Structure formats: structure tokens, C-alpha cells
């Protein structure tokens, strides 16, 4: 076919691109996951505004693909995949790469007070920012988005072994970075 193939379904009942019940399902999904997607995007980019843009872009794409994604019961993994790609796409845009700032970004102190929540957040965020994009995505998708190795591999377009190795290296790197600031990163259970 020369049109995009659409998933099998029923005719619309509201004159829109999706059946009413499918749209209701999507709206329910969006209500439940929007904030989680935005948080994942923030971990990937460290900027709340960019994270919000990425989350919205991901949900728009998810809406277009909703009947197919919903049928395959992969909506959560698909949404996190799209939000990851959205963040990566953003980072490729010049106007996103270079942001003028009047003041230097806050940097973590050399040694963080382990009980200081704000400082710890800054330290972890700084450590995340030192990771290469793929390693960072592996950590976020595995340990925040709670995707499996296979789902993470599918999201990033890499194989399972690469996910495992990139995740392990990312954790090593994070551990080293955080150790310098007084945080001890425990080993995670590798599912």
C-alpha cells in the first residue's frame, strides 16, 4: 500500500482518528504516565523544560501509534522508547546544544554531605551528565523506567548484550563519580 498501514480496528465513532474507547484508554494512559515520562526525560537531559517537550512529543507519537501499541501491550515500553529518542533528537538540534546562560551552572561540591538531599541530587545529576548518552539511557531505562534488558535493547536499537555491558560500565562510572563526592552506590540487582 502506498498509504501508511493502519492497524485493524473499528470505524471511528467520533469522526476522529481513533475509536472512542481507544481514545479513552489513551487518555487514561496519558494521565497515569505523563509525569513519569517527564521525569525519565529529565534524567536523560537534566532540563525540565526539555523534559516536558520530550514527554509531550512522545505522547503525541504514542497517540498516533496507540491502536497498534495498545494491542501489543507495549505501551509503557514504547512510550519510554519514544521519550528517549525525543531527548536524543533534541540534543542534535543546535539551538538545544548551546544555551546561553548568564551564570555558570551549579556544580556539586567536591564532597557532598550524604544527608543533604539537594546536594545529592546535584551530584547524581552531574554524574549522569558525565555518562555517554547510550550509557545514560541504559541506566535510566533500566533503573528508573524499569524496562527489562530486552525492552531497553529494543528502545535503543541495540542488542541485549550491549545493554548489559553498557549498563555495567555506566554503574561503574557512576559509582566512581559519586564516590568522589562521598556517595557509595550499591550494586543493583541485574534483572
Amino acid at each position, binding site marked *: 500500500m502506498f*498509504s501508511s498501514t493502519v492497524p485493524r480496528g473499528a470505524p471511528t465513532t467520533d469522526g476522529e482518528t481513533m475509536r472512542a474507547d481507544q481514545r479513552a484508554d489513551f487518555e487514561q494512559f*496519558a494521565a497515569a504516565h505523563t509525569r513519569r515520562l517527564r521525569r525519565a526525560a*529529565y534524567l536523560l537531559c537534566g532540563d525540565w523544560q526539555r523534559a516536558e517537550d520530550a514527554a509531550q512529543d512522545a505522547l503525541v507519537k504514542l497517540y498516533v501509534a496507540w491502536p497498534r501499541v495498545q494491542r501489543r501491550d507495549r505501551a509503557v515500553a514504547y512510550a519510554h522508547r519514544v521519550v528517549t529518542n525525543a531527548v536524543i533528537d533534541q540534543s542534535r538540534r543546535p539551538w538545544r546544544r548551546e544555551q546561553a546562560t548568564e551564570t555558570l551552572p551549579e556544580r556539586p561540591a567536591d564532597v557532598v554531605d550524604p544527608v543533604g538531599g539537594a546536594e545529592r541530587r546535584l551530584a547524581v545529576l552531574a554524574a549522569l551528565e558525565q555518562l555517554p548518552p547510550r550509557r545514560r539511557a541504559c541506566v535510566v531505562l533500566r533503573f528508573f523506567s524499569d524496562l527489562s534488558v530486552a525492552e531497553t535493547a529494543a528502545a535503543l536499537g541495540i542488542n541485549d548484550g550491549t545493554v548489559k555491558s553498557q549498563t555495567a560500565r555506566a554503574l561503574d562510572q557512576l559509582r566512581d563519580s559519586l564516590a568522589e563526592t562521598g556517595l557509595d552506590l550499591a550494586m543493583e540487582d541485574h534483572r
Partner: protein
Amino acid sequence: MNDRITDLLDEVADDTGRPVGFSTADVVRGGQARRRRRFAAAGTLAAVVTAGVVATLVVTGPGEAGERPGGFATDPTPSVAPSGDPTAASSGSPASPAPTSTPTEPLGGQDALVDGRCRALAEPPLGEWRLDAQATVGGGSTATFVSPQGDRWRQCDLGGEATVPGVSPARPLDRAAPSLDNAPYESAVGSATLCPKDGPAGCTRRLFTAALPLREGVASVEVETPSGRVVEPDPGTGTYVVRFVEDTDDPMPVLTATLRDADGTVLLRYDMNGLMR
């Protein structure tokens, strides 16, 4: 101090008190707009590829003695379904009446031509799969093949398409009875302009095509075209193909399909482009 990475990430991404700056309604509107743009882009692409494919098919016609070139390129002759009856898919202007064509070549000739070309393109090979339905009109063919077990089908496109001619992967053949909640939507009704790139201004000639599973109990199908014509595709054993040409500038018009049982009772009426709108 041990800090699990999951806890640390959760803490770093704490957005307590930060409202989301968009609503679900914003997302839905964006999704609908994106879908419309995608469809429009597909129509534009169709114009370019159609021209190329048509040219190729003209040059590489079958050349078999006693056979026409299979209706490719510019031949608008309605095609013949494997059952031997002429398909109702047709070409022509909106003012043209619905065709009641008769085959103009030996029965099976067109089928054999389409079958052979699809088999040459298929990857993986079609093997024991059989041609189930086909329609040749408007510069190309759309055909369907059904597996020996009758549980899967593949779609073959030859010319007149915006994608490279080829055979789709196998899909399950859904024979469930049609209903409003489960209408046949295996593939959208695609459309492509047939107007030459440097042709006259105002040309709105457009090809529409779709291949769909023949649902349980369905004996006949009618599709009302934008101009009000009624196209009656001839079903195969498990599928049917809709293919016609009309003058319209709407790439995604309302195409009302009516599915009837053997007694003529209407089983379902629905807009074949409904999901795209």
C-alpha cells in the same frame, strides 16, 4: 552509606510541585494533526513513485504472444478476478457509470501475469500460496495471496504505488464476522495522484486501492466512491481488492463500504478511511 541507584534516580527526578505544562487534549490534537500530515505526505510521495513505476512497467511489459501488456501503465481496462468474473474495480471519470465489464482477454491471462510478477518480487517466495484476488486498473495491480492453510495472506503491489512494488510479509487472515467494533481495516485505502508532474493544471486524477480480508458471512462488497459511483470488488476465497480511479483532490475521502451476506442483507456499513481521519 549505600544508595541504590533506583532510589537516587527517583530522588533526582523528583518533580513535586511542578505542574505539567500540557494537557491530554493538547496531545490528542497534536496526534491528530500529525496523522493528517503523514497521510498528506504519503500522497505526495505517491505521485513521484507512481510515475517511476508506471514508466518501468511500460518498458518492461510481458511481451508474451497473444497477451496484452496486462493493463499496466495506461490501460484502464477492469481486471479479471481469479474466479473468472470481472472485478468491479474500475477507472474512469466521475461521470462514468459503474463499469459492467467483461473480460477482453482469455480468462486467467491477467491473473497469470500478475501471479508471475508477484512471485518474482516475493521475498520470502510465495511457494504454494495462491493468488486469491487481484485488480488491475489505473496503471498497476493490487493482488492478494493466501497461504495453503488459508490462515494467512500477503498483499502484492505492482505499479501505481508510492512504495517500491513488492509483496508484503504474511499477516493473519482475520475471518471473524464483521461488526462495528471489528470492521475490516487491514490496510487503509491508499490514494495516489495519477497526474503527470508537468501535466495540466487542475488535474485531480487519483488512484485508490486497498486489500482486505473477506470476513465470515460476507458474500458481496460495495464501495461508494467520492463521486457516488459504486465499485463492486469481486471477492476471492479469503480476501478482496478495491481499486479504482476518480477525479478528486481529496486524498482521504469518505469511502463507504457496504458488506452484504448471500441474501443481500447488509452486515455492515462503514467508512473505509475512518481510522485515517
